[in-house]
């Protein structure tokens, strides 16, 4: 799965997610990616997020919208992502990763899996990572 979130100079946010799905999936299986609120969500009032991971688990907790809900409650993108990923892990045993940008331009790339390739550019500064802590 691949995804992107962004905020532009006008303060508009957007998200995009695309995937080939789960390896050797059943014909006709559709995971989280195409489902609004699960594979991604964007709302100028809060921010935008794109998800990746175990699709059925992501759909059970509606992960993208859950992260924005926590941000609405005052959490930072990083804290909201961690709380939502932990909820998915403890409630349904699912692992995954998310990228988030808030309406104020704060961002996060968080994952409960061992790895997630990510990159960001803000203030002309490029950062990227694959492993936890990078």
């Amino acid at each position, binding site marked *: *799965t*691949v*995804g*992107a979130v962004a*905020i*532009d*100079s*006008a303060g*508009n946010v*957007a*998200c*995009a*997610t*695309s*995937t*080939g*799905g*789960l*390896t*050797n*999936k059943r*014909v*006709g*299986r*559709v*995971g989280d*990616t*195409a*489902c*609004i609120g699960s*594979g*991604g969500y*964007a*709302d*100028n009032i809060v921010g*935008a997020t*794109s998800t*990746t*991971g*175990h*699709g059925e688990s992501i759909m059970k907790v509606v992960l993208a919208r859950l992260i924005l809900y926590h941000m609405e409650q005052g959490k930072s993108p990083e804290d909201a992502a961690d709380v939502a990923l932990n909820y998915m892990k403890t409630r349904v045993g699912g*692992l*995954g*990763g998310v*990228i988030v*940008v808030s309406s104020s*331009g704060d*961002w996060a790339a968080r994952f409960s*899996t*061992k*790895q*997630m*390739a*990510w*990159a*960001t*550019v803000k203030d002309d500064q*490029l950062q*990227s990572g*694959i492993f936890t802590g990078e």
Partner: protein
Amino acid sequence: MKPVIVVHGGAGRIFKERENGSRSGVTRAALKGYNILKQGGSALDAVEEAVVVMENDPHFNAGCGSVLNEKGEVEMDAIIMDGKNLTSGAVSAVKCIANPIKLARLVMEKTDHMLLTDQGALAFARAMGVPEVPGETLITERSLERWKKNLEADSNPQEFQKDLG
């Protein structure tokens, strides 16, 4: 507002030999999107083009490089959403389309619907003049090997969990 873009290339297992390719792939995608933002482009254009970069990169499980279903075929899903007015478009189970994210955007902008799937999505793509590509062009040697290997591991569900979508 200072523009910001964040991209991901999936939370699946990244083997050592693919680390550099994955890292450079997400970097290229982020820079592509950021350049659009820096030139005054919209967040919507930035995320779409960033995802297109990764769909075209065989290191990632989307577009060219997608994993295969149990029949050895590519079936892809994509979604795009505009935070300005909560409009969204998505496609699922599409085949023979190089960039499903572009088709998702057409669903958002050219229909009253949120999600088109399978044959309906293909018919819509044809109506919109989106070119079809031979399915084989989206299948990489690596995805074909993984498919064969996972057929052998079919009785071990934990093997699937290691290669999350």
